[in-house]
């Protein structure tokens, strides 16, 4: 009887709802001559696949959504496609080859006009360029001590030390397009460090065996003025251990003079105008504990930054130096914030930031502002602010052969590309520089475990995807695919085969999906190559028989390599429980709930491929991302204010705190964390990170 009562109540409630709806429509709601309310309009939630390669033949796509009618048509930039009705939630349509001829995108929607209602919202269909082998590497049979790029004259310049077996004590002018040495000139005794003046009129060369800095005119390398370096504080001859032409004035150069055999090597810092030394210099012996081995000019000719890298047990840190017409002097008040541990660091005048392998620092705020998640063992890095990329050479195996080029977004710190250079690039890495439209040049020296050194020229789309390569010559490289997302990313236990769209980059027709795979066990699954950014894989019903994570990776049997990462397809427990589980591939570090906006904020780590170091707003009812915003690296503490007004963010890798206005996640305020008690303290670093909020 109780059940009957309950059913009656439900029916009554339903009828009441119908009556109310009818009233709202203005009629009597009983079908007695009034206009029935229009059916609800269509919604479009996904297109599968959502991309194709330009030049593909006709393609059948599946449109998923709600409120589809038998008369519904799939619209392609406003024109109807040949459409087949499958159900109220699914249509299929044929995209003709003509519409896929050129790269670009199209807006796809659903029209229910014949049913008397309008269009759904639009989704974008991408027509991608086919992936071609587009980055090459060449090995030149030289082992320079240093290299520099003369952008004005389009040449690489290389110094060959006194021990070079074929070109000792020379400078080489190399045409990077042909890979040939065009000019060889004698360069005193043991030429080493190189630096080119801002207008490419001069090349400054540290000639270690002569204890001089020798200037040459460009482009012909005519010998110009000579700067004899003064003796050190105990009467020994010095060499240039760091040498940097001024940011603006082509006649000015900064020299850190000392001895390569010392640790640290820098003893004295001088600034020269042509061959005239400015009067004030810095003696590093009297400035302990500061040790400066590396110099970089700041944004202009009034500041030099310096750091030490050779002595791991000294405080280290970056110091700022003031440069005036009278010379160079230490600026008080810093020296404590950390720098990297490799030789070739950079200050970028475009970004105003310092780059030291993994770490990025703001020398004005004395704050670390980011980190590149560089996981190899030995690396050399160089930024290019014009392209917005950060390039690092990585030895993937400690004390072993192999080389990879890792390319990051300069501003966002996330990994963009990973290029395999194994088999071509050998030796232990030295200087890495940018050259040309899309080139990198690397010098390496002979290594016991790493093989023969050389000069290597890397060129192509991985360095700069926006231009054609300088020369498509050499050995084609492999760019590893990267997985960004799965759609859908879960299914109920016991489901039949599930078609999953895998989004990512650098997929090839050889790419094949794989579940719980490794090199010993390849469980490949049916895969359709859609485009370099999309694959379609079928997760077979046999793998969906028990709840739990199913690891999906992408394997390339031709190259015998896996994509950089893998993702989880979750087999959800049965629906008979009142407890519902949803799973998302998010590398979350912290969460905060916004009850006002009914969203969950997730701070993501730097290795989340789709949302690296973001605050992601998740709709918990649909387990979908609503919006996201990039923040400083590793937002690992979140705290939401009263009335859900602000989200406070603390970072594991930036000594900053950020306040975001909710729910838009609009950046409101970011400020450096500091402790007044430690300002200007050279014994302790003055870097502070949020421990809790």
């Amino acid at each position, binding site marked *: 009887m109780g059940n009957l009562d309950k059913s009656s109540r439900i029916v009554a409630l339903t009828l009441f709802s119908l009556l109310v709806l009818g009233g709202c429509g203005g009629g009597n709601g009983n079908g007695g001559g009034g206009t029935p309310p229009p059916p609800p309009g269509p919604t479009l939630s996904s297109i599968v696949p959502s991309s194709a390669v330009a030049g593909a033949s006709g393609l059948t796509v599946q449109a998923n959504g709600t409120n589809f009618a038998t008369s519904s048509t799939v619209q392609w930039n406003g024109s109807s496609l040949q459409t087949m009705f499958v159900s109220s939630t699914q249509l299929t349509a044929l995209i003709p080859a003509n519409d896929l001829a050129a790269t670009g995108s199209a807006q796809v929607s659903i029209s229910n006009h014949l049913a008397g209602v309008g269009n759904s919202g639009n989704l974008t269909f991408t027509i991608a360029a086919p992936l071609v082998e587009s980055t090459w590497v060449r090995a030149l049979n030289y082992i320079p001590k240093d290299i520099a790029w003369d952008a004005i004259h389009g040449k690489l310049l290389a110094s060959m030390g006194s021990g070079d077996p074929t070109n000792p004590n020379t400078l080489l002018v190399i045409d990077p397009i042909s890979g040939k040495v065009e000019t060889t000139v004698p360069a005193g005794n043991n030429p080493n460090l190189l630096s080119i003046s801002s207008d490419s009129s001069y090349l400054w060369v540290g000639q270690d065996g002569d204890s001089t800095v020798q200037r040459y005119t460009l482009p012909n390398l005519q010998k110009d003025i000579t700067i004899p370096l003064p003796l050190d504080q105990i009467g020994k001859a010095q060499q240039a251990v760091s040498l940097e032409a001024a940011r603006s004035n082509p006649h000015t150069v900064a020299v850190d003079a000392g001895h390569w055999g010392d640790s640290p090597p820098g003893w004295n810092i001088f600034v020269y105008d042509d061959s005239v030394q400015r009067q004030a210099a810095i003696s590093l012996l009297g400035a302990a504990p500061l040790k400066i081995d590396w110099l970089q000019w700041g944004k202009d000719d009034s500041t030099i930054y310096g750091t030490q890298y050779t002595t791991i047990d000294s405080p280290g840190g970056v110091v700022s130096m003031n440069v005036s017409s009278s010379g160079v002097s230490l600026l008080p008040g810093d020296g404590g914030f950390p720098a990297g541990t490799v030789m070739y660091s950079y200050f970028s005048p475009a970004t105003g930031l310092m780059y030291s392998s993994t770490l990025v620092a703001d020398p004005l705020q004395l704050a670390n502002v980011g980190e590149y998640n560089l996981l190899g063992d030995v690396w050399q890095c160089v930024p290019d602010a014009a392209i917005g990329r950060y390039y690092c050479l990585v030895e993937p195996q400690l004390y072993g052969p192999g080389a990879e080029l890792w390319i990051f977004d300069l501003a966002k710190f996330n990994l963009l590309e990973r290029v395999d250079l194994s088999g071509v690039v050998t030796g232990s890495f030295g200087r890495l520089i940018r050259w040309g439209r899309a080139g990198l040049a690397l010098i390496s020296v002979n290594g016991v475990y790493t093989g023969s050194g050389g000069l290597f020229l890397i060129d192509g789309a991985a360095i700069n995807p926006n231009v054609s390569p300088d020369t498509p010559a050499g050995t084609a490289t492999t760019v590893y695919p990267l997985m960004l997302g799965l759609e859908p990313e879960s299914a109920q236990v016991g489901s039949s085969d599930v078609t999953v769209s895998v989004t990512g980059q650098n997929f090839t027709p050889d790419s094949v999906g794989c579940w719980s795979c490794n090199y010993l066990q390849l469980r490949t699954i049916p895969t359709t190559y859609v485009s370099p950014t999309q694959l379609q894989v079928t997760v077979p019903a046999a793998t969906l028989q028990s709840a*739990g994570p199913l*690891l999906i990776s992408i394997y390339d049997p031709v190259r015998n390599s*896996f994509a950089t990462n893998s993702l989880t397809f979750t087999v959800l427990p049965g629906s008979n429980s009142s*407890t519902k589980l949803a799973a998302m591939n998010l*590398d*979350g570090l912290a*969460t905060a*709930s916004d009850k006002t906006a009914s969203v969950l904020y*997730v701070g993501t780590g730097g290795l989340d491929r789709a949302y690296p170091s973001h605050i992601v707003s998740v709709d918990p009812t649909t387990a979908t991302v609503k919006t996201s915003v990039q923040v400083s690296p590793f937002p690992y503490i979140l705290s939401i204010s009263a009335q859900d007004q602000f989200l406070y963010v603390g970072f594991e890798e930036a000594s900053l705190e950020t306040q975001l206005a909710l729910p838009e996640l609009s950046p409101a305020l970011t400020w450096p964390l500091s402790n*007044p008690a430690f300002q200007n303290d050279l014994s302790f670093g003055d870097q502070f990170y949020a421990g809790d909020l």
Partner: protein
Amino acid sequence: MTVYDDQIQRPNIVAGLTGGNDIDVLAWGKTDSILMGSQNDLLGLQTDYLLSVDSSGVSLLSSGPSNFNAAGAGIHSDFGTGLVYSDDGNVADPSTGKVVGTINASGIVLPDSSLNRIFVLGQSQAQANTNDYTIASFDETTYGLVSTITVQNLLGSPFSMGLCGDHCLAVLTFNGNWGPYYGPVGMLYLISDTTFLSGTPYLRGKTSLTKGEVAMRWKRPSRTEVARRQRFRREN
């Protein structure tokens, strides 16, 4: 330990290690003038800190050995009750530092006065060394067990649990084996249940728990470890 109003730092701070204080985690009390801090190192003596906040900043009222928080555990505010809840299962009044209650479970604790519940993510003895977990809910007033549910076959180790709406818990996991073959670095699990995650008395699962029956039986990485361990592993 410092307090900011927007980006303006209040002048009075409490020095950390150089002042002999090791404050790793914080929780506010009932008002904006009460803070409680605690050490959450895995090693060493655990210390609780009672702090006072006013317009000039923060000052240390007292500190002493913790009878409230276990090594490596976190503490959590509940502005509704004004009390502080430790992952060890203890409830303290941050104005006095005294323990005012205990629940019979430990793990990852989440108080929610809007539901009058304390949720605890832990593992039973039978779940140890598996990817299955128990979530227990307790009455926030009486500290008595209300319900338990289980979630199974998660990828990675849970290290964070929070609310994600009126009937939803968000659990973050860290997958220490991430890489080309072993899945992503971590997962976000959303657990929704309109009866378990409600203020309505609804007994499900276990009817009673003894102390320690549901506990942290896996190695929970701290959020710092999660961030740092991502940086020191090679991807391939």
